[in-house]
């Protein structure tokens, strides 16, 4: 009887997983990794590889890439899509490696979540001593797993911001131009990382 009830409750949980409950252990893992003293002593390249490994667990970079490109995504070949996804992930990896040094034990507060169909928004607050920054995670349900595809910091969506910049590049120089600019930017960031 008791066993039955437990099984029952578990199946209902797995039928509709809670986005916040899935995000929480993930962000705990991110902050634990960030505050690991060993991490700060690694070479920067290795630091960023390790962080992206953790972040991949709950970020869907393919969905993110698709949205950043917008309507033109469908006209890209499969190879181009994969290429773009790899480049865009690398861009974010290098752009955010600086965050590792900035992290100083900020706490995450969970405000509320909204679910509509297979989409969800989880609103959080990154609480520092003297300021708190609202950060929302926009997520998509994939086989019982809520995967983030956008991050909204103080109302500014990362995807929509890049989308506008990329759409002008795509309009002027097409997809090859965009790839060239991405590669150039990544090389720049890479140089900076290994320098400092």
């Amino acid at each position, binding site marked *: 009887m008791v066993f039955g009830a437990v099984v029952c409750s578990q199946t209902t949980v797995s039928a509709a997983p809670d986005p916040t409950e899935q995000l929480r252990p993930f962000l705990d893992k991110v902050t634990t990794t960030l505050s690991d003293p060993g991490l700060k002593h690694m070479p920067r390249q290795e630091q960023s590889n390790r962080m992206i490994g953790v972040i991949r667990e709950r970020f869907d970079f393919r969905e993110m890439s698709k*949205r950043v490109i*917008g*309507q033109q995504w469908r006209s890209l070949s499969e190879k181009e899509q994969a290429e773009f996804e790899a480049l865009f992930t690398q*861009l974010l990896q290098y*752009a955010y490696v*600086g965050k590792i040094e900035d992290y100083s034990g900020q706490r995450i507060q969970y*405000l*509320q979540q*909204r679910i*509509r169909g297979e*989409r*969800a*928004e989880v*609103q959080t607050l990154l609480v520092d*001593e*003297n*300021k708190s920054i609202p950060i*929302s995670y*926009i997520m998509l349900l994939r086989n019982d797993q809520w995967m983030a595809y*956008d991050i*909204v910091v*103080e*109302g*500014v*969506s990362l*995807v*929509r*911001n*890049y*989308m*506008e*910049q*990329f*759409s*002008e*590049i795509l309009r002027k120089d097409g997809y090859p131009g965009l790839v060239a*600019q991405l590669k150039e*930017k990544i090389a720049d*960031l890479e140089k*900076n990382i290994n320098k400092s």
Partner: protein
Amino acid sequence: MECMKGHLRRLCLLLAVVGMVLSGTSLAEAAELGGEVGYGEVAGSVDFLSDESYEKPTGDVQVADPIEPFNRAMFTVNDRLYLWVLEPVATGYSKLLPVDIRGCIGNFFYNLGEPVRSANCLLQGRFRDAGLTLGRFLINSIFGVFGLADPAGDEFRIAPIYASFGETLSVWGVGDGFYLVVPLIGPSTVRDFSGVVVDGIASASYSPWNDDTLTTATAQGTRTINRTSLHLGEYVEIKSMSFDSYVAFRNGYYQMRSKQYDHSNHSK
């Protein structure tokens, strides 16, 4: 002493309650106005859960940018001013004063703007927010020692409320005009910049330092340096991540603004 504290608390509570009652009674009126004022449907508000907000490039929040060459030039001017003057000065300043003192100074300046915010709420028909903002001003001025601390936010859970004359004009149906990068101020639109000017004149009318230009300039300078000192490194970081920083900041301005204008979500 304890007894004194108790009295203070009670008085505080009373003030807060008065504020809420004031705002509560007006809610009905606001609801009646609702259709006209367009409470929940702020122009350009965005729902991240709908695909439309991703499909067309930033959709309806996009404002025309007919003077882009001028704006780009001003963007460069501001960029240089920031990197060559403001950031070095703010970095030095941040070494002189500990972060919590700078936080208090920031609170002080923010608190001085509360009456203007409250008035804007009234002009927009947001009576509840007008009451809450006024409540914040009273609580923080009295119990937060001229606004240095934020007991209204910390103890009474009345989060800061956004309101500006630019927003008031938008509620009244005044369009944005076009995108405008203002020297020293940064991204704006013709309407929003007019709002900034009006808000500035309004708050100068009761500021403690409106005696002469020098004091006013010093106060404004301190405010800017103090604010910058709390956000060191952010500008350079955003710039290093962007492909066209002019477009990145223009887009960021519109996105941030539509969050500020959206009051449907009083989560805190």
